[in-house]
């Protein structure tokens, strides 16, 4: 069942120096329960695409719909994880997760406690964000999005600001959440290993204009091993795709 459908999406940024075609003719269908990673060079519009799906940017042509309903603005249906955790510094972890829901409500309380367990923040419910490490804060942000039972969870380079070790932990934590909750996820990254390690499909994007070059199915069982031959084969294949596009750009310029 198609959950998210993107048809002929185009996005232009206008400035004094003329128009920039940020996204050109994007078509993408995401099935319910999929975990899709989007990878591409900086400036390829992958974050812009995510913001458009979230409804944070609506000045576009083409259509984005979730379960057949057109996206017209931000809503809790589309959980969004920014590169920074963006927790409210004046709230404790549990209040950050509950946010606009009251913790006095028994149901909210139970769900928050459950999610704190899921993202492995046991014992930190009453801590303030300043007392958390970057990885922990990002997990709290994920719990905050999950509390709202989003139809799709959009992650915009969520682990980009973390060190390599924490990033690996976080990738496993995210896989665990995905397997337990079966939330549909779209994750934007610039880390090739991360894209293959997590994605059921890897969407390869290209810059100038931002467009989808190829969608690669990753047919490897979880948990994946980054050192495996099969993993490395996918890595090579995707790298070749990038090289191809770079040649095309270079060729286009020399003419």
């Amino acid at each position: 069942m198609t959950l998210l459908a993107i048809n002929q999406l185009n996005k232009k940024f206008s400035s004094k120096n003329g128009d920039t075609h940020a996204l050109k003719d994007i078509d993408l269908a995401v099935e319910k329960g999929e975990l899709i990673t989007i990878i591409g060079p900086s400036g390829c519009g992958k974050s812009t695409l995510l913001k458009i799906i979230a409804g944070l940017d609506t000045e576009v042509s083409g259509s984005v719909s979730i379960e057949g309903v057109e996206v017209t603005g931000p809503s809790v249906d589309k959980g969004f994880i920014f590169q920074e955790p963006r927790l409210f510094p004046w709230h404790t972890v549990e209040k950050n997760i509950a946010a606009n829901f009251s913790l006095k409500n028994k149901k909210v309380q139970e769900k928050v406690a459950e999610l704190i367990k899921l993202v492995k923040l046991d014992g930190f419910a009453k801590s303030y964000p300043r007392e958390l490490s970057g990885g922990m804060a990002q997990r709290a942000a994920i719990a905050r999005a999950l509390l709202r039972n989003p139809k799709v969870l959009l992650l915009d380079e969520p682990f980009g600001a973390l060190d390599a070790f924490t990033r690996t932990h976080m990738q496993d934590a995210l896989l665990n959440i995905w397997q337990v909750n079966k939330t549909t996820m779209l994750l934007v990254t610039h880390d090739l290993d991360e894209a293959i390690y997590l994605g059921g499909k890897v969407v390869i994007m290209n810059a100038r204009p931002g467009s989808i070059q190829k969608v690669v199915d990753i047919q490897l069982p979880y948990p994946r091993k980054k050192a495996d031959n099969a993993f490395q084969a996918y890595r090579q294949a995707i790298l070749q795709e990038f090289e191809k596009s770079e040649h095309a750009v270079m060729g286009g310029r020399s003419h």
Partner: protein
Amino acid sequence: MSNNSELLYGDSVVKAKRKKKIKGKQLPSKTVIFLRGMIFPVLLIAVWEAAGIYGFVSETLLPRPSEIFMAFIDLWTTGNLLYHFQVSFLRAIGGFIIGGSLGLLAGLAVGFSSKIEHTLDPTMQMLRTIPTLAVIPLFILWFGFGEVSKVLLIAKGAFFPLYVNAFLGIRSVDGKMYEVAKVLQYSKWKQITNLIIPSALPNILLGLRLALGAAWLALVAAELMGSSEGIGYLITDARQFSQTTVVFVGIIIFAVFGKASDSFIRIFERRLLKWQDSFKG
């Protein structure tokens, strides 16, 4: 799951690091902090007293601390001091509440709406630059020497610090956090109570402290310009009879109470802003 322990391990490392930091730089106890603050005043009083005893300074111009203390006891036992203090206190609080709450409301209104800002702020900024002392003659002409002119003068002093800082606080809300509130579908009310007010609180509390200081300053100006009761009156009256000790008692009461009221707000500040992660020196 194998990654559980790793995850938890990662967390406990962070926790341990934080503890170590606290241990490594031992936080001074409350008594130590208090004693540090007392070093300078105690030293000053000792030198002052000694200078008086050995006759380095004139007793009428600079009476010894012990004499000032005796004058304080005298005034206290006759009940005069408490009465004058009460009068001053009520004036200050009255003016502070009127001016402060109006300043806060105006600051919030201007902060929330750019339309109100465009209409109100230019006038406010113009009025703000008028020194409190310069309007004293006008207030006397309008309201006479009575309580009204004094309370209004104090209110004018307290108004602008809160106005400016509440305005600034609301406008310093992080756009990124606003985006989060949008994604989480915060209602307008939740945006105000859970995002804007907490963001603006550090500024508002600073405004409160500055307003209190300004109210105190205006109180002294109001009482010195002419009054028949209050600490300011006590000071002017004593000056006419060259009772330097009483002048000192009045000044010290202003200083002590000013500091006490400031500390009072700082207690609130510490409690309300405990989430802040700032440099502690």
